């Protein structure tokens, strides 16, 4: 078997992998290898033809392909090695990777690796929607690819289960395509995605929304003919007697994203059961030395801008790991999710340098304070689980951490 080596091998050429590769190369690492399984770099950005990308990173409002283009050009300018249509078949904790493409199988030994595989959508089958199993049930992202990249519409009478961002964007997209979005059905008492999308995709296009409802039956033997929706109780169980049938030819499912960590597990990387992504320190390094993670493989982000920033951090730190140009963090203080906090990334900090941590709340709350034990408190007018919160911990805050501290409790409480 032909054996190759790389200083830094990056798995996934989406926004996280692109930013990681650029930063790693710019940090002075010679041999950066970016591996992408699709035909081209950019990941899912190519099918996101709407705007809303880049407002943080470029201070501009770009479409997905435009946003991707800027990074892809930089990768080309920097002469970073890219393997397209290449699948990672195997990976070991000592950073040996088996790659496969139409030219054959290659084994690559890397000094450091960045996991940037992104995430996948939860399927109808995984959430077990009862009923028949006809054609016409798609995840929202798959439908987005079919419409925007392949050029075909799944149907003309659509019901969307879940109010995630892709679901809302597809509600608008399909309406603009002349299809009728008959309903968006959300099991929670609030919309699952960003407020911005709720305004621009749902309210502006008069999409009927059924909160605290779910799809309880799919009808149609060969092709979707209708769905039954029903109201749910507090335990998210359908309430008998509230069932209503909506005739439709297509059901889109937008019920959440799952980080794709099957390869990470093979590499011995430990996962956080809440985020579904690797447990990382403030350098975005996993429990396996020299394996870093960034973007949606780490935790599902709302904004691509943040994914790019995370990718850059991982790229920079992986470069430091390879060139030994800076000491990576040793000291470890675990961040513990307390009251109304669902998760925090990174899961631990060193307490030595300024850092921005990212977190999500469990429930929406108005007029509340997010607190990192007694070192930091910040007031928020409103928080909701769909909007990720960035919290900067300054040197001043860090100086309040008592010596010997091994964990800090993060919580979100009512009031100021």
């Amino acid at each position: 078997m032909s054996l190759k080596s790389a200083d830094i091998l990056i798995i996934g050429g989406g926004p996280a992998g692109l930013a990681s590769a650029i930063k790693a190369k710019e940090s002075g690492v010679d041999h950066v290898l970016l591996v992408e399984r699709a035909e081209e770099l950019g990941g899912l950005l190519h099918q996101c033809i709407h705007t809303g990308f880049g407002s943080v990173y470029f201070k501009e409002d770009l479409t997905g392909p435009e946003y991707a283009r800027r990074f892809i050009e930089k990768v080309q300018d920097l002469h970073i090695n890219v393997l397209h249509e290449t699948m990672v078949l195997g990976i070991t904790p000592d950073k040996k990777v088996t790659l496969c493409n139409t030219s054959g199988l290659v084994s690559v030994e890397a000094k450091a690796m960045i996991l940037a595989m992104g995430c996948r959508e939860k399927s109808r089958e995984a959430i077990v929607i009862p009923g028949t199993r006809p054609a016409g049930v798609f995840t929202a992202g798959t439908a987005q690819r079919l419409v925007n990249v392949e050029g075909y519409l799944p149907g003309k009478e659509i019901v969307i289960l879940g109010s995630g961002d892709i679901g809302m964007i597809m509600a608008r997209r399909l309406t603009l395509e002349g299809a009728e979005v008959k309903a968006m059905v959300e099991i929670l008492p609030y919309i699952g995605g960003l407020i911005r999308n709720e305004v621009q995709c749902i309210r502006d296009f008069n999409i009927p929304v059924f909160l605290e409802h779910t799809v309880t039956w799919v009808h149609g033997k060969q092709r979707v003919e209708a769905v039954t929706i029903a109201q749910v109780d507090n335990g998210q169980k359908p309430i008998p007697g509230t069932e209503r049938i909506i005739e439709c030819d297509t059901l889109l499912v937008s019920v959440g994203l799952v980080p794709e960590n099957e390869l990470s597990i093979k590499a011995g990387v430990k996962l956080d059961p809440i985020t579904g992504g690797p447990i990382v320190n403030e350098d975005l390094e996993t429990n396996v030395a020299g394996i870093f993670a960034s973007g949606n493989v780490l935790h599902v982000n709302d904004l691509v801008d943040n994914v790019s920033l995370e990718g850059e951090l991982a790229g920079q730190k992986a470069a430091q790991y390879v060139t030994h140009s800076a000491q990576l963090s040793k000291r470890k203080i675990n961040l513990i999710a307390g009251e109304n906090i669902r998760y925090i990334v990174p899961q631990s900090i060193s307490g030595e340098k300024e850092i921005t941590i990212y977190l999500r709340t469990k429930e929406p709350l108005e007029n509340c304070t997010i607190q990192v034990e007694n070192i930091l408190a910040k007031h928020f007018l409103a928080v909701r689980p769909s909007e990720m919160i960035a919290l900067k911990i300054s040197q001043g805050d860090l100086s309040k951490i008592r010596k010997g501290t091994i964990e800090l409790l993060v919580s979100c409480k009512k009031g100021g």
Partner: protein
Amino acid sequence: MRYPNEECLKNKNLKLRPDRRQLEADVVIIGGGITGAAIARELSKYKVNTILVEKGGELCAGSTKATLGNIYRGLYMLGSLILKSVLLPPGTPLSALYDPNGLKMKWCEEGFKEWPQVLNDLDIKHTYLPLHFVAITEDQVQDLNKMRDLGRRLGGIYANFQEVNREQILEREPHVNKDVVAGLYAEDNIIEIFPPEAAIALVENAVQNGLKVMLNAEVTGISKNGEYQIVQTVKGPVKARFVVNAAGGYADKVARMVEDIDWGLQYRKTQFMILDRRTKGLVNGIVRFPNKPGLIQVVMRREDNILIECGPYGLTDNCEDTETHSQLVADALAMAKNLVPSISQNDIINTFTGVRVFNTRDIEEHIIEFAKVNPRFLNVVIRLPGFIGALPMARHVVEMLSEAGLKLTVRPDFNPHRKAIPKFRDLSDEERRELISKNPLFGHVVCRCETVTEGEIIEAINRGAITEEGIKMRTRAGMGRCKRGFCGPRVIHILARELNISPLQVTKRGVDSPFLLFRSKGLLQKSVGKVI
């Protein structure tokens, strides 16, 4: 450029008319499940012109694609024998449970011995699985004792099992519920196969030896015309000397096209669940509770997944009633967790329902007989287990046809061997590289969950797959955890390209199940030219 080029055809004033010549066969087999497939392959050993007609858009459209389909004997069969008692009145004597001369038992015992040769000849992936029947409750211990006693009374292969205690069970199956108190264990009772793969392999080999297959060809009527019968299908008539009714859940409907019958069909359904590959290793073979009246409870390894069957075995009056109910899934999950506690709801990647067919004349037996009014129309109505006895059954059917006048001349060039589509995921790196060097498309992974390459998908199409399910059953593409989320659009694209059809014509499982209904902007064309 897409050929044929319609413009050129117009210029040439070339008029194409459908070919209305009548198809003709010595034997028409109705139904492309395991029963029809096995008969087709048996007939292909002879110089017999056979056509298999299938209602669905693919083979294995009914029970064959939703069954455990294990080839088993001995201890596992004992479980089934006890299960059968549910369908018989309480207190039924042993002779009614086990009739070694009945077709069902005879074929099962012969079939288990015959399959290994055919599995090897046809290159069908198979694995021998160890089996544990385990008991947690006192009630289950009693049931195990009944099984043990039944096995000892029958003797032979039925007594070839071990009684095992808690420690012995946990040593072989460490993830089983620690509360188990007793079990029965057998080593080589079960050959695990993927049922559609086996049925399709039989058909592929029959096609190599001359069989013709018509898909999307629902039979609408059968008439007799002297020496011949005309099988009317939605794809046109087929003239046949002999007709074999292997229509599974529709066998009664097809039989009634010929005469009034004194039997009907009834259907019972069970719930299946497939778990994520990450659960690999949770069980090493099959672990199950002893069957309760009307309840099957099995957790087994299938390839790298875990497959669960749990059935109240409820009656349904519709053989297409494969709807999944929340309660049944919840029950199946609870059962599976009781057997293997670390199984969780998050592991589920698919749920589906299988429908089993029984005839109302004798719920314990098959019906293999010619129609009273037509001595060349043979009803082959198989009850479960349909896979184990399929090979002896097919031989029996061909003998019956021969006795009824079908001339059997051995096909001198009969080729008993068929090569499977290479399974990239199962190959060593060395084999993979060799494959890619021969055909680079084997290096292009399309289904990332199950590691299925474009080369495999194209090979499946070359062998007759015309739908997404056809690809799935032949290659496993789309069977993994993301459920076609990634490979779905790509498989549609490849099918359209290879079959030279529009993606709008690509279906899930036949004519009525298209994935895509319009081109983008296709719904906006109405407003073209309108003043807005």
